[in-house]
C-alpha cells in the first residue's frame, strides 16, 4: 500500500503550485483556476487522512468543500463577467475599485 505521507506530499506540492499561480499570475482567470487547485490539494489531504484513520468525516468534509467551491466559482465568474463588461480588463492590477 501507499504510505500516508505520499498523498500528503502530493497535497503540499499541488498547494504550493496553486499558491504560485495565485501570487504570480496577473490574469484573473488563471488566478481563479489556481484557487481551484488549492482547494483540490486540501481535498486530497482530507481523503487521505480519512482513509488511513478509518474515519468517514474526511470524505464528508471533502463533499462540503466541493459544494462551496461550486458556489464560489459561480459567483466569481459572475463578478468576472460584470468586470469585463464594465472595465474590459482581465489583469488583477487594473482592478483597484476598492483601492486594495
Amino acid at each position, binding site marked *: 500500500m501507499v504510505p500516508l*505521507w505520499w498523498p500528503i506530499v502530493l497535497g503540499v506540492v*499541488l498547494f504550493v503550485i496553486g499558491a504560485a499561480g495565485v501570487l504570480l499570475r496577473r490574469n484573473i*482567470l488563471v488566478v481563479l483556476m489556481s484557487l481551484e487547485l488549492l482547494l483540490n490539494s486540501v481535498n*486530497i489531504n482530507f481523503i487521505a487522512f480519512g482513509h488511513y484513520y478509518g474515519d468517514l468525516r474526511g470524505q464528508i468534509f471533502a463533499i*462540503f468543500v466541493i459544494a462551496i467551491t461550486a*458556489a464560489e466559482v459561480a*459567483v466569481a465568474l459572475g463578478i468576472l463577467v460584470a468586470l469585463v463588461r464594465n472595465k474590459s480588463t482581465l489583469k488583477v492590477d487594473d482592478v483597484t475599485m476598492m483601492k486594495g
Partner: protein
Amino acid sequence: MAQGFFLLFAAASVIAALTVVLARNPVHSALALMACFLQISAIFVLLEAPLLAVIQIFVYVGAIMVLFVFVIMMIDVREAVLQRFLPGGNLPALVLLVLLGVEMLVLVLWSDRFSVTEPVAMRSGDQIRQLSTTLFTDYLLPFEAASVILLVAVVGAIVLAQKEPR
C-alpha cells in the same frame, strides 16, 4: 502495484498543475486543469473513496470546467495572450512560496504520525451507505446550509451577470 499507479497519477497531476500556472493562454490553462482534476479523481479511487471520485468528475470536470471554458469563450482573451506572464519584481512572492513549500515538506517528513503504511480497517459494511447515513444524520445542518449557500450563489451570479444595472 498501487504504489506505481499512485506515482503515475501524482506525476501527471503535478505536470498538469504546472501547465496551469505556466501556460500563457487561459484556454490551455483550463484544459490542463481538467487533466489535473481527472488525475486527482483517479487518486481518490486509489484512496478508496469512489463516491468522491465520481463527484470530482461530475462537479469539477463536468460543471466547473465547462463554466470556465464558457466564460473564456465569452470574453476576449486575446489581450491576455499577448502579454508576458510572470513580470519581473515578483521575487518576494517567489521566496515566500519556496519558504512555504520547504516548511510544509520538512514538517510532514519529520513527523512520525505521517508514516502510517496500512490504513485502519473501515467498519464492516457498505462504505457509501455508511457515508450517506452519516451525511444525512450527523451532518444534516451543514448539508442544508450548503444547499442554501448554493441557492444564494445562483441568485447572486444571475444578478451580477445582468446586462443593465438596476
